[in-house]
């Protein structure tokens, strides 16, 4: 399969700041990727969408709360509803939860500290169509957030676990998790990334796009995006 045929749109809100990193990571892998402005309402030219990290609308009110009402979001909801792949990274994940495309919410880190560090993450067995990596794979990816503490009610957590919607968990470097949890931000059940029940909408706090070309010290993001791309191609049937 060639590199053509999976056109990524990277949605840019006022205050997004990781869109160039995402575009650069995707192009590094030989993929077609272009920006989608938050006021655009025509997504017909795209096969997959990325909501990148940043501080959309200054993170005012709550992270992602205002971006969620941007004109483009109505179309993003429709796009996701049609089973097409949508991924939200960091602030993008927060936007997806605010838009109720993903359950739960991301609140302030338990120790009130902005965390910027590479962390080990465990790939869980999930229904996520974005990620085609074996269960138990440990990736090291950077996190960079103040509000990455995933939370939801007990019923939602049970649904996520039973439905195979937990995609990534924070773990120790050997892939295990201590009984008290090990999420640096206090995330419920060590959750770092989840998907919707259908598996096509995926949100995660870590930044794979910052770990592609080795400049930041790790390249696990490249494998991550290759897997994402392979899965996305399957989803769009090309």
């Amino acid at each position, binding site marked *: 399969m060639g590199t053509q045929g999976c056109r990524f749109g990277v949605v840019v809100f006022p205050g997004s700041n990781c869109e160039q990193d995402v575009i650069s990571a995707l192009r590094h892998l030989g993929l077609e990727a272009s920006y989608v402005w938050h006021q655009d309402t025509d997504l017909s030219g795209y096969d997959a969408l990325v909501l990148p990290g940043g501080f959309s609308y200054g993170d005012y009110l709550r992270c992602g709360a205002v971006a969620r009402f941007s004109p483009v979001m109505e179309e993003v909801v429709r796009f996701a509803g049609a089973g097409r792949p949508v991924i939200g990274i960091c602030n993008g994940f927060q936007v997806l*939860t605010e838009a109720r495309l993903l359950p739960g*919410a991301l*609140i*302030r880190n338990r*120790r009130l500290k902005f965390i910027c560090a590479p962390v080990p993450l465990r790939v869980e067995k999930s229904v996520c169509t974005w990620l085609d990596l074996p269960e138990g794979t440990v990736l090291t990816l950077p996190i960079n957030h103040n509000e990455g503490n995933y939370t939801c009610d007990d019923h939602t957590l049970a649904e996520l676990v039973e439905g195979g919607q937990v995609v990534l968990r924070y773990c120790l470097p050997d892939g295990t998790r201590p009984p008290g949890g090990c999420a640096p931000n206090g995330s419920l059940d060590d959750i770092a990334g989840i998907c919707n029940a259908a598996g096509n909408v995926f949100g995660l706090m870590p930044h794979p796009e910052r770990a592609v070309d080795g400049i930041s010290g790790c390249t696990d993001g490249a494998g991550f995006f290759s897997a994402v791309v392979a899965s996305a191609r399957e989803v769009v049937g090309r």
Partner: protein
Amino acid sequence: MRHYQIHVTAKKGIFDPAGTTAQHALENLGYDGVRGVKIGKLIELAADDSVTADEVAQMCARLLANPVIEDFDIKEA
């Protein structure tokens, strides 16, 4: 013109990191009797008389608060 005060606080069972930290800080200062601190937001909203109470509640549920993690309480000032 009507003036509303909207209090937004963490829902019961949702961890409030800022409140918990302030509570620990008060304990460190020697205040032994503190049994809970919750930190929320106060939103002051001014609206024309034509805006109904129902609409203000909708504004809270849709945007001003996130019902997944927050409760809101509306009082007309």
